[in-house]
């Protein structure tokens, strides 16, 4: 067997210096009360994928060393290493790769995620340390289960690509295309598997907090939002809440692998989404107001994103994908050994660039080893480094306190639906609303291409959406709706014209029978919401029913009237409006006399022109690239505009004239019907509570201004508004190409 210690001598001396020097009251260093460490050793690799990928499989090194769990006792560079899994477990484990693990509260068992062969998936296993026996936990053999952690009450939480919703496919991330991971839990005896409600994108790296909640990283994508944030959830996967990284608090694009330092305080990896081997800088996140308790620093009071701060524990390490310098490297993970203001950490660290391209070019792989990091002195002291392996996730093998069980009361009278609502929608930290200005809250379901759509729902980069309805806001500002469980939804406050006033910028979801009633519309998280006299008007009136028990494949509607419309398919619903009302002036004959805009390449001088045209005809070839799908039409390009990322990234120049008859770049702004030129020009009529002839703007409606005898119907106005407020997509379930026969 090869020697695993490259730096035993220096490590020993440094560890001693780190622990006993400088007059510390600790006599044996930060690891002095730790008898042994458990370390996961994986064969080195370069291509892990971005921070949410989980399928990397490399069971052996070139010399034949297996992925394994080892115990280092004592936790020093000259400590004895013992392989604790899985040489002893039988021939079935001969080619296992292990991706993550957790130690039980009594330190007698380890749960780990392993993959037995290339043609199998990652599953969960329990190692009993006393006898070395390994038992696989029953999970769907065709799905992956990773990142397990122990929960109180003999349960294990994990992330999985198994799907909670019968008959549905797991969401695929719109951008990096991975089948998403969601949260789940199972009893340690293998019974009672439960899958949590879904996000549209990934959730990964759950970790248990001392207050009983679980923190994890969630990829948030809704329109322009694209980042990995820390979130909280109860152990029963209810009561999802923001943790860190939103509202401008983040230290980087992505924050992951959080581990609690003390209540309200976490060490986590801050890095780019990709190219950094899932490694990065270390940050010390403080969610609440900082307080001191002896040597320990806590941040448990008034925890909220608004109060969150962070300290950079490794200031030289890039937070993005820049190759890190020699001796700076990147950190794969960290575990706090104490809660000092500048804590001591046991970390997994690799020297050098730790960036995929540089490593690939050099034919190298990052070499993560285990180190003791003294953040006060910014010194790393080597403990364990196998030259062929990644030595990651070092954890003390010792009992730890069992947190309380956290969960939420469920309401069985919901019969499997989820209830959402607000006590007072006017209570918001993100937006001020004029009293009485909000008519209701619109709820929209989100989905991705897994339902069979082409890669793009439109040119605006929004996911697929279906309108579930509008819940009326009551006199006290409250609202309530029963929606399908386990389904990502987002909400908008709408006015009496059905137009979006404010869009909650995230997808949320709830479990069956879960009641998720917030204080407001993204209300301040560190303040209590006072309800008087104790029950809201919405509770008294009852929840608006929004397809709470309707299966996914039935959540579509060919009735596009105001109260029935769900998806707003451009090729059918919107095009019909144009066909019936607009083509007399705005077809390819251009009787309206619109002037074109021009797109020019300043480098070559070539240019193309586009003139407003509301026909449902395919785009000309020259516009197919910046206009989106071949199925996208002239009317779609005219209203939604070209793919602005393509314009911007191509360095192209747009030019238009300023006269009233000049074709504008777009006439619809995603999620902003009120600000969209199409809507302002048409000046729609009132929708709620009943459709009337009252106009939204104090201007002459376009049709009247042009001498047209008729105008759009109230339903048609609402279809346009809804399409715009749902992202100006071309595709909806109602025109999903998968529904055709080929």
């Amino acid at each position, binding site marked *: 067997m090869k020697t695993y210690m490259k730096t035993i001598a220096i490590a020993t001396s440094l560890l001693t210096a780190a622990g006993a020097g400088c007059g510390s009251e600790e006599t044996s260093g930060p690891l002095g009360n730790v008898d042994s460490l458990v370390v996961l050793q994986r064969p080195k690799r*370069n*291509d*892990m*994928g*971005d921070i949410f990928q989980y399928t990397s499989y490399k069971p052996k090194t070139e010399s034949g060393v297996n992925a394994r769990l080892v115990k280092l006792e004592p936790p020093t560079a000259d400590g004895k290493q013992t392989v604790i899994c899985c040489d002893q477990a039988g021939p*079935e484990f001969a080619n296992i790769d292990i991706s993550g693990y957790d130690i039980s509260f009594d330190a007698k068992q380890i749960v780990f995620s392993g993959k*037995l062969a290339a*043609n*199998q998936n990652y599953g969960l296993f*329990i190692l009993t340390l006393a006898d070395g026996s*390994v*038992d*696989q936990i*029953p999970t*769907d*053999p*065709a799905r992956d289960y990773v990142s397990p952690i122990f929960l109180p009450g003999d349960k294990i939480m994990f992330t999985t690509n198994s799907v909670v919703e019968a008959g549905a*496919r797991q969401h695929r991330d719109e*951008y*990096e*295309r991975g089948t998403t991971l969601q949260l789940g839990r199972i009893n340690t*005896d*293998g*019974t009672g598997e439960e899958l949590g409600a879904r996000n549209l994108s990934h959730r990964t790296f759950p970790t248990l907090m001392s207050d009983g909640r679980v923190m994890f990283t969630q990829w948030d994508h809704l329109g322009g939002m694209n980042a990995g944030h820390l979130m909280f959830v109860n152990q029963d996967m209810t009561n999802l809440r923001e943790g860190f990284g939103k509202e401008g608090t983040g230290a980087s694009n992505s924050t992951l692998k959080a581990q609690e330092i003390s209540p309200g305080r976490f060490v986590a990896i801050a890095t780019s989404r*990709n*190219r950094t081997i899932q490694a990065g800088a270390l940050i010390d996140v403080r969610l609440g107001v900082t307080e001191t308790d002896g040597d320990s620093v806590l941040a448990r009071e008034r925890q909220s994103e608004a109060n969150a701060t962070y300290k950079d524990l490794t200031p030289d390490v890039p937070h993005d*994908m820049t190759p890190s310098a020699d001796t700076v490297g990147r950190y794969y993970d960290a575990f706090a050994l104490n809660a000092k203001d500048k804590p001591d950490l046991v970390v997994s660290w690799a020297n050098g660039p730790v960036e*995929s*391209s540089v490593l*690939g070019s050099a034919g190298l792989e990052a070499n993560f080893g285990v180190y003791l990091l003294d953040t006060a002195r910014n010194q790393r002291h080597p403990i364990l480094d196998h030259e062929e392996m990644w030595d990651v996730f070092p954890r003390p093998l010792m009992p730890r306190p069992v947190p309380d069980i956290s969960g939420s009361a469920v309401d069985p009278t919901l019969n499997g639906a989820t209830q959402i609502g607000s006590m007072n929608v006017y209570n918001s930290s993100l937006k001020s609303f004029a009293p009485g200005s909000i008519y209701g809250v619109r709820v929209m379901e989100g989905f991705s*291409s*897994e339902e*069979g759509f*082409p*890669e*793009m729902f439109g040119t605006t980069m929004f996911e697929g959406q279906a309108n579930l309805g509008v819940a009326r806001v009551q006199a006290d500002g409250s609202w309530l709706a029963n929606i399908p469980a386990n389904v990502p939804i987002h909400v908008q406050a709408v006015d009496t014209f059905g137009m979006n006033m404010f869009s909650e910028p995230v997808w949320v979801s709830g479990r069956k029978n879960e009641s998720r009633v917030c204080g407001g519309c993204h209300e301040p998280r560190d303040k209590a919401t006072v309800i008087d006299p104790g029950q809201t008007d919405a509770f008294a009136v009852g929840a608006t029913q929004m397809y709470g028990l309707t299966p996914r494949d039935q959540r579509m509607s060919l009735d596009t009237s105001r109260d029935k419309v769900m998806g707003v398919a451009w090729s059918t619903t919107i095009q019909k409006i144009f066909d019936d009302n607009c083509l007399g002036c705005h077809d390819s004959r251009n009787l309206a006399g619109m002037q074109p805009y021009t*797109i*020019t*390449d*300043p480098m*070559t001088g*070539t240019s*193309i022109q586009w003139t407003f045209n509301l026909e449902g005809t395919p785009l000309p070839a*020259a516009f*197919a*690239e*910046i206009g989106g799908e*071949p*199925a996208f039409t002239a009317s779609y390009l005219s209203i939604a505009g070209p793919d602005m*990322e*393509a314009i*911007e*990234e*191509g*360095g*192209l120049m747009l030019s238009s004239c300023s006269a009233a008859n000049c074709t504008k770049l777009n006439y619809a702004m995603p999620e902003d019907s009120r600000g969209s030129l199409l809507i302002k020009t048409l000046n729609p009529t009132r929708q709620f509570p009943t459709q009337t002839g009252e106009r939204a703007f104090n201007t002459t409606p376009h049709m009247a201004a042009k001498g047209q005898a008729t105008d759009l119907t109230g339903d048609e106005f609402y279809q346009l508004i809804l399409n715009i407020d749902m992202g100006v997509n071309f595709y909806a379930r109602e025109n999903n*190409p*998968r529904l055709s*026969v*080929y």
Partner: protein
Amino acid sequence: MKNIGTKLAAVAFLVCVASPAYAGKGGSAAKIRDAIRSNSVDAITAEIERAESLTCSECVQMVTNLLEDDRYAVREVAAWWFAKRPALKDMVAETFLDDLASGGTIKVRNAADFLGRTVTYTALPALRAAIHRDNVGPEGKLALVRAVSYMGHLGGNEVLTTAMADGDAGVRAAAATAWRDILGQTSAAPVVPLLADGDANVRAAAATTVGGMGHVAAAAQLETMVVSDPDPVVRRNAAWALGKLQQPSSRVALAAVAADQSGLVRMTARASLASIR
């Protein structure tokens, strides 16, 4: 290298008009080139993703070449890049359809991966035809299965049922697994014969699909498998499947393997047994 030069001429304006090729998100032709030179899948993937909306003539040819990379992950992200450029995608798809009809194994593999990943439903008839070709090897047929699995369209069922009878066990196993992932699939009956397949991987995959789809008629066969199959992965999957089928008749078989010699089987059998009321 796939030569789509003549067809690209049709969009010559398009690629010319976007020639500066420096992206707001930091993508560029040079960075794609560097990533390709690094030979790192992660780097290539990251730079292709970053060039999501970047159009440039140099990028088109570079990414086109990646459609024939030996690594699936590279072919996949290259196909995604084309899926974001539907006009170009349709042109490339045309050439790949030809490969499905007459290309060798590797050409079929590349074609199927592209057409599947770009969700080119109109290619389903060609995929159905290709699976019947005798001169396509397992690697090509695995890609055909992968393509229809990704699409999830019932029109791919013929590909899967044909693959289930293929001479290669890997193809049969992949088809058995993919069957469950087709949207709107109602019955696992075509998979049931594979429970008696001579290859353990095929039996294991079939057991999972049959259980996952709740095909109660297969309970007796699974009960036999869980106690007598020599392969622990098959016994594990059969035990899991019986837990899904929830048949009281399965109690005896599950109890018999509750202390199975393999750690893969024991807890699954006990949990399935506990779940049957």
